[in-house]
């Protein structure tokens, strides 16, 4: 793979629009990544091969984005890491998942959360009948003492002041953006080292997307590592340092966030257009519309 190395003969003439070759070691995580996937395969119902050898890594600080069209396998990747794939009749059938120096492949989610990895699922999954405070307290169910839990609760209210105002409200009646903030806060209650977050911008108004991402920025600043799945590539790449693009259960492109931002293929991916330029499904059209609002 010598051609993927930065060749001195290429000089400064980096061809624009060229698909970026996977820059080996270009990712600053090679030293000691917090999370590393090596050739991970996932089988659903013992027949559907949803991931076909995914390798990626997340450094100990900063944010990595996982992009791709519908059905590419982004959510499946996150579920395989956190172990909730188990409850969906799926399993990791090959490959390795190393978190913080230890294999977590096949571990149950409780163990993974305890190890410091928490998964915020797609779709703003609050506990609808409980108050904001109760949701957060449940997120801190692993604390050995109430004192430690209270301290974490205060930290969450500090990090996301909006939640503090809402603490006695029933979670099911919050606005979409508030619910997204709540599930992020609830995940923080587990005091994770790494947060996997699946489509936090989905279905939110632009102003709310800004607020949610501002919170993610702040958490990142405070040292939380993030692996974020997004359809809204623009906001995701503004937050991320590095990105991977998936298609058909494989990583097809990776690179520094600013390189990806400039890449034409990425635009195509996140428009949900297939190679011929046709749209795959109604959902893709919706994504397209939503995206149009961003880019103006």
């Amino acid at each position, binding site marked *: 793979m010598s051609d993927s190395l930065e060749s001195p003969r290429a000089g400064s003439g980096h061809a624009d629009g060229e698909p970026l070759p996977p820059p080996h070691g270009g990712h600053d995580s090679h030293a000691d990544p917090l999370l590393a996937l090596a050739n991970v395969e996932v089988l659903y119902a013992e027949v559907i091969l949803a991931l076909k050898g995914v390798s990626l890594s997340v450094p100990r600080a900063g944010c990595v984005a996982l992009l791709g069209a519908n059905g590419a396998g982004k959510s499946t990747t996150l579920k395989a890491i*956190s172990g*909730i794939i*188990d*409850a*969906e*009749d799926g399993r990791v059938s090959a490959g390795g998942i190393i978190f913080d120096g230890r294999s977590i492949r096949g571990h149950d*989610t*409780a*163990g*993974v*959360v*305890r190890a410091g990895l*928490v*998964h915020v*699922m797609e779709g703003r*999954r609050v*506990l*609808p*009948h*409980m108050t904001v405070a*109760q949701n957060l*307290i*449940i*997120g*801190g*169910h*692993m*604390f050995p003492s*109430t004192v430690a*839990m209270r301290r974490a609760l205060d930290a969450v209210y500090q990090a996301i002041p909006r939640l503090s105002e809402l603490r006695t409200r*029933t979670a*099911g*009646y919050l606005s979409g953006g508030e619910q997204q903030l709540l599930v992020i806060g*609830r995940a923080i209650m*587990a005091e994770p080292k790494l947060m996997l977050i699946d489509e936090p911008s989905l279905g939110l108004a632009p102003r709310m997307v800004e607020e949610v991402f501002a919170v993610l920025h702040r958490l990142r600043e405070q040292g939380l590592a993030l692996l974020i799945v997004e359809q809204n590539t623009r906001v995701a790449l503004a937050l991320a340092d590095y990105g991977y693009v998936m298609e058909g259960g494989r990583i097809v492109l990776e690179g520094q966030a600013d390189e990806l931002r400039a890449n034409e293929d990425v635009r195509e991916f996140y428009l949900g257009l297939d190679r011929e330029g046709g749209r795959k499904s109604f959902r893709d059209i919706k994504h397209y519309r939503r995206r149009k609002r961003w880019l103006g």
Partner: protein
Amino acid sequence: MMIEFVNYALNGALLGLLYALVAMGFVVIYRASKVFNMAVGEMLVLGAFLVWWAVAASAMHPAVGIAAALAISVLVGLAIERLLFRRLIGESVFSMIMVTIGLLILMRGLVLLIWGPQERPFPAIISLTPIIIGDMIVPRPLAAGGLIAVVCAAGLHWFFNRSRTGLAMSAVAEDHQIALAMGISVRRSIAFAWALGGVLSVITSMVYLSGKSLTFLSSEIGFAALPVALLAGLESIAGLLLAGLIVGIVQGLTAAYIDPLIGGNAASVVPYLFMLVVLVVRPTGMFGWKRIERV
């Protein structure tokens, strides 16, 4: 007569609190696992036979006998989770409810197999001398039952709404997948629910059956308590008390004043009628979690 009326109402209220105590068997298991346990009556009969066996048949000291019955019922609860529900995590809640119907049949069969169909005098664990306040006469087991119901409800309400362990279990009742994603052990929560259900069934059986006779048919109290559970809504433990009081008082007064007029047994129908009316108006019961729908 005023005093008669008060007497009927008071006895009805206490009977209602007994229903509430039985109905806690439904709610506790629901609040920690989202499963509606159809076998509540059978669990109660099993608890009762354990107490009978320990205290009357084996002639243990009552305190020791009750402790033994409690311990065994916890083990039975844990076994139920281990043998039946552990395999079903991730399956639909509906299939879990069907399993509780199977459990009902199985437990009834086991009770018949072990202890047979004959009537047994249940030991008077709670003294039978009635409490007399002025002109009012209150059966002591019912009075004790009312007190126990209130104490249990307060304790369980605190547990499920305030304590972290209880809240984590409530999360399981809300949504198994969310609970799993947060690292809550759904398995442990369900096991705890059935163990707690076992404990409650022993306590309830002593209130209900003290000094009465016990057969496998005593499980009917489970169905008598069903209207209270559904009226309250399956999530609200405090609501059970109020629903129990309403059902009990209405039933008591119907038995006293309406049944003699029509020469029939309207009292046993009234709770179900009441339940149907409330459920038509508010399907989640009076205090249950309202289904939240917003877009």
